[in-house]
């Protein structure tokens, strides 16, 4: 086992699949000799050559559109979008094409590809280097949406995503890229998609979170523990398709639920979790479900530390549902 950061684990996963499967290739802006702006693709061009890890012209629409064509014709492209904020020029290709190809062709054509992209705040990137757009994509049947929060999951989920027969949007929480380290097996392995990760067991309040909100929720749960509140913490890690049974079971366990995400609240992912619980296990609920989220505003810059849910706000919600 090696101790890696998340960005190193992503790099390790890419090398691992590229060694095993010559049809896997990486494309995007600055992914070649520079190794990507966050160095996630560092060393790939040197090891696998410019035909398997290459820079493209500056067009996200072009990157994703051509990746779809490659996927339709026998390659397994892993496309990098430099920041998730810049994915929108490719929105049409992702939503109208990649996600619907299998369905509209009755399974005759498919687009097994991965779109990797750093997302989320915490790096003082302002409006356009900080957004969390998962809700747009989770509203897109045909896509899978995966979000790791640990180096182990980053590698295992990315390999599973590349081997998956359907298009996967792989959202990498850039705030955690270098701040979280963990043990990562050297061999290739998969973490099954659509499975939850229990971060911490507890019987008082269930906290659902993902991405960069996981360490925030862990801190809040530690502080709650000091106050005698025992949190059950669940990292959702695949947002679509969601392990619904797992979510319902976790909700039933405590009857008190908090959902944390940094994206805006309205029509955000937390709304889906709340509705799922309300529709299926409301009779087990002891308190209203609380969401702790970013504000329903564009992402700020200097005030990003206030925009992003912090342990104070998560703890406040935990205490509210606990004392209800």
């Amino acid at each position, binding site marked *: 086992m090696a101790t890696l950061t998340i960005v190193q684990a992503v790099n390790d996963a890419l090398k691992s699949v590229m060694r095993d499967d010559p049809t896997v290739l990486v494309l995007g802006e*600055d992914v070649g000799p*520079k190794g990507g702006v966050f160095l996630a693709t560092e060393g790939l061009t040197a090891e696998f050559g410019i035909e398997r890890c290459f820079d493209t012209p*500056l067009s996200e629409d072009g990157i994703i559109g051509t990746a779809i064509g490659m996927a339709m014709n026998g390659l397994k492209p892993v496309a990098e979008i430099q920041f998730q904020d810049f994915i*929108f020029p490719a929105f049409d290709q992702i939503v109208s094409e990649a996600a619907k190809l299998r369905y509209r062709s009755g399974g005759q054509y498919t687009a097994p590809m991965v779109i990797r992209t750093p997302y989320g705040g915490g790096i*003082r990137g*302002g*409006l356009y280097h900080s957004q969390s757009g998962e809700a747009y994509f989770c509203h897109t049947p045909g896509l899978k949406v995966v979000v790791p929060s640990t180096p182990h999951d980053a590698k295992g989920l990315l390999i599973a995503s590349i081997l998956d027969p359907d298009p996967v949007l792989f959202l990498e929480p850039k705030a955690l890229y270098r701040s979280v380290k963990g043990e990562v097996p050297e061999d290739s392995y998969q973490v099954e998609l659509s499975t939850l990760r229990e971060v911490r067991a507890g019987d008082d309040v269930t906290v659902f979170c993902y991405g960069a909100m996981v360490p925030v929720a862990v801190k809040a749960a530690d502080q709650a523990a000091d106050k005698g509140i025992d949190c059950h913490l669940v990292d959702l890690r695949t947002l679509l398709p969601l392990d619904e049974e797992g979510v319902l079971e976790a909700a039933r366990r405590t009857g008190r639920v908090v959902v944390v995400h940094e994206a805006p609240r309205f029509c955000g992912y937390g709304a889906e979790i709340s509705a799922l619980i309300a529709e299926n296990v409301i009779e087990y609920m002891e308190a209203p479900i609380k969401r702790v989220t970013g504000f329903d*505003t564009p992402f*700020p810059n200097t005030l990003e530390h206030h925009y992003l849910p912090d342990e104070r*706000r998560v703890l406040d919600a935990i205490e509210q549902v606990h004392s209800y």
Partner: protein
Amino acid sequence: MVDVQRVLAADGSVVGAVPDMSDCRLRELLVHMLRVRCIDERMLKLQRSGRIGFVGSTLGLEAAMIGSAAALGPMDWMWSGLREGAAAVMRGLPLDEYVAQMFCNSNDTAKGRQMCNHFQHAGSHYPSWSSGIGTQLTHGVGAALAAHRRGLDEVHAIYCGDGASSSNGFHSGLNFAGVWKAPCVFVLVDNGWAISVSSRAQTAAESYAAKGRAYGVPGVEVDGNDVLAVHGVTAEAVETARGGGGPSLIVLKTYRMLGHSSSDDPTRYRDPEEVAAWAERDPIDRYETFLLDRGVLEAGGRERLAAATLAELDEVIRTQEAAAPMSTRTLVEDVYAEVPGHLRRQYNDFARIQESHGEARPGEGAFPL
């Protein structure tokens, strides 16, 4: 092959027709280029010492931005691609607002909401770029059409980089402008690089100027380190656009001397010899030689001008660094004309938690519901 327009050779000798400009105006171009360089130098220094977040350097691009922007009239608009902030200073963006934006403090007209290097100045018709490469091109074309429809005499100068030429906005922008004969001028700053992607890898076209032809927009290539050539060609294009002759595409061939931004290490992907070769073609050295030869600048003049600008800048920096941060209420303001109920409630919930930790500042309390 496309001819590259040039007035001054790299050594400052005259190889083309010098535009008909007064000595005073000629000297001003140097003053403004020096200001661009001084601003860049100071911002990089602030960034290195951790006082501001990030800088998109303009070293080497001074003639491209000043030569072109100086050809615009006060009623004309500049649509920035990325690095034109210091040209906006020449056109009226106050230096203290420029520096406030770099500190993202409470004097920043964008209220600290944008990353550094996203300047704006409504007074001189300079909207900020967003960050998304290529989005401004169609905005500029639409605004140019609006000017025409409203009978205004404006020309819209729309800047973009070599990288941006691959964006959807570039193609839609040139196409629409051509079809509408919109009063605009596209200024494509080919500075050799789009982060780590060489401008030669961005297109298979023989030149960026050739791209205009496909849209019925005449394209011309100019030595972007020759401020006189840049100025002359832009002035002509602006005149054409203003006279109803339609848009043109000006390609300024220049070089980004430093990394893409202060977070980029260009040694990972480019040849130091290429950088050294471009250093020989420095736009300010070249123009200084020309002015000295012409007797418009006295020996030591450049150093004196730079020192004066740096002193002025240091004063502005001292004031702006001390300015207060934004009030937390700005978190939910300006999303809509009025702060709607759901945002008031979200803010008030936040303010309640801040207050419970004794951290709310005066004027940052709850909104009335």
